[in-house]
């Protein structure tokens, strides 16, 4: 059964990092990292957090090999009226409209001093334009 050390090694290799690079970025010794990866040493929560941050990995995954995900996959798809209008004007396919909706939904939280504002037809068109400019 894979251990925390095994998972650190697995992700480090996927990130194409050497032990030297990871140890340096996480501010710990290469020898200690090697011991952790070879299951010869236990790692404290603070050091594990530092390694997780450098690897961009979930702490839960490193500890347990699984993550707790909040998923909205089972939610019914509701196309907002403004998006529907924007899609019609831009002649977008259903798939393209869904892609736009998915991108927009990836904004989970935003701290701002602006007043509440719902996404307008123009906002959807602007978002489409910005994505198209980068991704074609």
């Amino acid at each position: 059964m894979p251990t925390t050390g095994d998972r650190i090694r697995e992700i480090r290799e996927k990130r194409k990092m050497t032990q030297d690079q990871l140890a340096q970025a996480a501010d710990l010794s290469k020898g200690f990292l090697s011991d952790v990866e070879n299951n010869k040493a236990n790692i404290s929560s603070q050091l594990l957090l530092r390694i997780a941050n450098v690897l961009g990995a979930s702490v839960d995954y490193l500890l347990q090999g699984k993550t707790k995900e909040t998923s909205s996959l089972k939610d019914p798809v509701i196309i907002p009226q403004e998006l529907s209008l924007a899609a019609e004007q831009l002649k977008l396919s259903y798939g393209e409209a869904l892609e736009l909706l998915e991108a927009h939904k990836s904004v989970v939280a935003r701290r701002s001093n602006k007043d509440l504002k719902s996404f307008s037809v123009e906002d959807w068109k602007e978002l489409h334009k910005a994505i198209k400019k980068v991704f074609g």
Partner: protein
Amino acid sequence: MPQRLKDSPQIWKLVRDLGIKTTPDPIAAILHHCEQRIKKFLADLPGSQTPSQLLDLVAAKLGTVFEVARSDSELHDIRQKYLSRGEKIFSRLNEDLADEVYGITFKLLNREPWELEYVSVIDCRGSKAARAYYTKWHEIAHLLTQTDQMRLSFRRTHCESDKRDPEEALMCKR
């Protein structure tokens, strides 16, 4: 505590969505819910002592990482990093972080199972830097109370206006 926040149907819906049974005070119940979650995180990963360490721990347990932009150049690098991973919403990052937007949390759509689920971009350019610490906690507060993606996704926030959204006002509670 303003009575209207306590009486907001949106706040009561959040209470229900969080699975809180019955309570006469929804604000206190939600804050208690958040405290309990943080206590559990501390039990899972003991040893965090400073506020900064606690912030990192809670962020990690909630599945987010802070990407801090102190200059236009750093913001450009963050944008490029996530665009290269196919995260389309980053196409508008510069526009989204307009004058009065301090931070945005994104759910990553193209990620490995072991990667963090979210990224919180904290704008620390110019005068916004002074608010960075509280901006991070604001983003954390959203993730602590997240129950449904749709409810969170179609709004902007306003922490200082009287016309603020009830949930946004709640995020500023201490």
